[in-house]
């Protein structure tokens, strides 16, 4: 038996309205303003750094910048072409070492790692490796290659130092990219008679290639901006790169060195170098953003 609906006692609708001057409302408004202020304050440094680098960098942005050697102190002409080339070489060496290394290690984690205690340890090691300060990667390459005389101060030593820093990023992004590939794809492949290595090399990896490339590009862009691991491994040079066993100049080290010299032309070159580094990072980040939007599966 449901009792018949009783006529409602008249409710004072005023109670249901939001009282904008109550303590709760004021607190809500104050906190919302505070959170927005935090957001703004976080964006200010980004905008400040970007505008300043763009303004200063573009003043010196011209063709000789990309084709000529840095001027000796006192002269104003010249460019940073050797440093751009040097960065490409050192980062190239780092990529040659870290990409196959990282991708294969990630294949192990993603494809054979389920329930394997070894995979847990390798993931842990990767995370610890990503926390290793960049300068320590430089110290490692110095101790391993420079001090022992294996390569001395050289592009290779710099590349090895950078590859240590690129590895965790490559492993992590490849691992994630492989795990996104649906299990059904592997089952279908195995069901058609493919063996493990065929499934992974011909089916799973190709499907994950776009995301892997994105990860590798990001890792390369980050590595190109690294300075600390290079200052005492690749050292510096004011000439064109003379081979992978010679000290070599790089954009980031050039920015560091020229930032603190008392000559105005060198400072301008430092800003131009910083602009190139920032442009590179900006473009790869935006491209990576756009690329990951399109999904294969």
């Amino acid at each position, binding site marked *: 038996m449901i009792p018949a609906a009783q006529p409602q006692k008249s409710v004072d609708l005023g109670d249901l309205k939001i009282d904008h001057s109550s303590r709760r409302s004021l607190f809500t408004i104050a906190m919302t303003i505070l959170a927005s202020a935090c957001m703004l304050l976080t964006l200010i440094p980004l905008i400040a750094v970007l505008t300043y680098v763009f303004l200063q960098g573009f003043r010196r942005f011209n063709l000789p910048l990309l084709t000529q050697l840095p001027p000796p102190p006192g002269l104003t002409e010249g460019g940073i072409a050797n440093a751009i080339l040097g960065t490409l070489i050192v980062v190239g060496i780092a990529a040659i070492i870290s990409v196959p290394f990282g991708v294969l290690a990630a294949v192990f984690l993603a494809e054979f790692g389920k329930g394997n205690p070894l995979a847990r340890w390798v993931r842990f090691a990767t995370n610890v490796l990503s926390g*290793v300060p960049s300068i320590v990667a430089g110290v490692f390459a110095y101790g391993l290659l420079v001090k022992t005389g294996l390569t001395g101060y050289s592009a290779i030593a710099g590349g090895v130092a950078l590859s240590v820093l690129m590895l965790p990023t490559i492993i992590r992004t490849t691992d994630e990219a492989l795990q996104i590939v649906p299990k059904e794809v592997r089952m279908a492949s195995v069901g058609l008679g493919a063996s493990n290595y065929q499934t992974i090399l011909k089916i799973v990896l190709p499907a994950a290639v776009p995301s892997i490339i994105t990860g590798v590009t990001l890792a390369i862009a980050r590595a190109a901006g690294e*300075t600390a691991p290079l200052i005492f491994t690749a050292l510096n040079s004011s000439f064109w790169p003379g081979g992978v066993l010679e000290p070599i100049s790089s954009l980031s080290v050039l920015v560091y060195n020229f930032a603190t010299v008392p000559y105005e032309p060198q400072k301008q070159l430092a800003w131009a170098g910083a602009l190139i580094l920032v442009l590179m990072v900006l473009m790869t980040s935006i491209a990576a953003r756009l690329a990951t939007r399109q999904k294969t599966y």
Partner: protein
Amino acid sequence: MALAVIKYYPLFRSMTVTPQGQYASRLRSRTEKGIDGVFFSLTAGFAISIGVLLLSIGLVVTINALPAIQAFGLKFLITSEWNPVSGREAYGALPMIYGTLVSAILALLIAVPLGVGTAIFLSENFIPLAFRTVLVFMVELLAAIPSVVYGLWGIFVLIPITKEIGRWLHNTLGWIPFFSTMPRGPGMLPAALVLAIMILPIITAISRDSLASLPPELRQASLGLGATRWGTIFRVLIPAAFSGIVGAVMLALGRAMGETMAVTMIIGNANQLNLSILAPANTISSLLANQFAEAKDLQVAALMYAALVLVIMTLIVNILAEYIVGQIQAKYD
């Protein structure tokens, strides 16, 4: 008839259809199994060498540091003389250890409230999702800008500003030991500010992730009980995501302690212990960046020893962070 032939075969034994239309199982050939085995061992080998790489980093640094460890022992950690002049060589890293810790902690003091505030802003629906996505991306960009660019910007933009602020602080609050010196430009304050900018995106990104990955039921239940938005944030969401936020802070601390270039360019590189945050200071990583290229013999060993101290410090912080972040992921799975 055919059904009788199809028995249960393990996944990796393929089946083929014979020309007669009958099913027959084809066992993997020895070569195929062999290639599979080789491929597995290859990937496993590369995976294991990540661990080997990590160990060899520790080993290379320790072995090279041995001469200094034997010469100075633990005194290295508590003395503050750094004298590479041969014959009177003495190395103590106390000012650098102090500088590393203080600059990182100051940076956290600035970046944690800002980062968590930003994370809350980005995980709530104050503005439409499309705008939030752009803002999240912009915060990510903050992490992508190279350290050396922050350093360059710090020298020419931030230091002139902090010099003014520092002068005011010194003149009005000079009796506090932290502001007891006249700012000369480079120093602990601008370095901590740049570090704060550099760790902001880490704190924001991980805190936002842990807030956004909370089950929506938590928020719905709280709002349903009559809590306001901020009541829900403070009493329900932040406590639930707390370990994620703490993990973010720990990761940021590790990053701040290891950060090199930006700090080297603006901290002043003075190997002295000074309580004043307006005075020049030094960190372990800036010490390494400054002296490694020209170092010889015992100085290299001393620098390696300093690097070892840095590795141990960041390792402890990062493993703690790893552990804490791991805890939350288990909680709401």
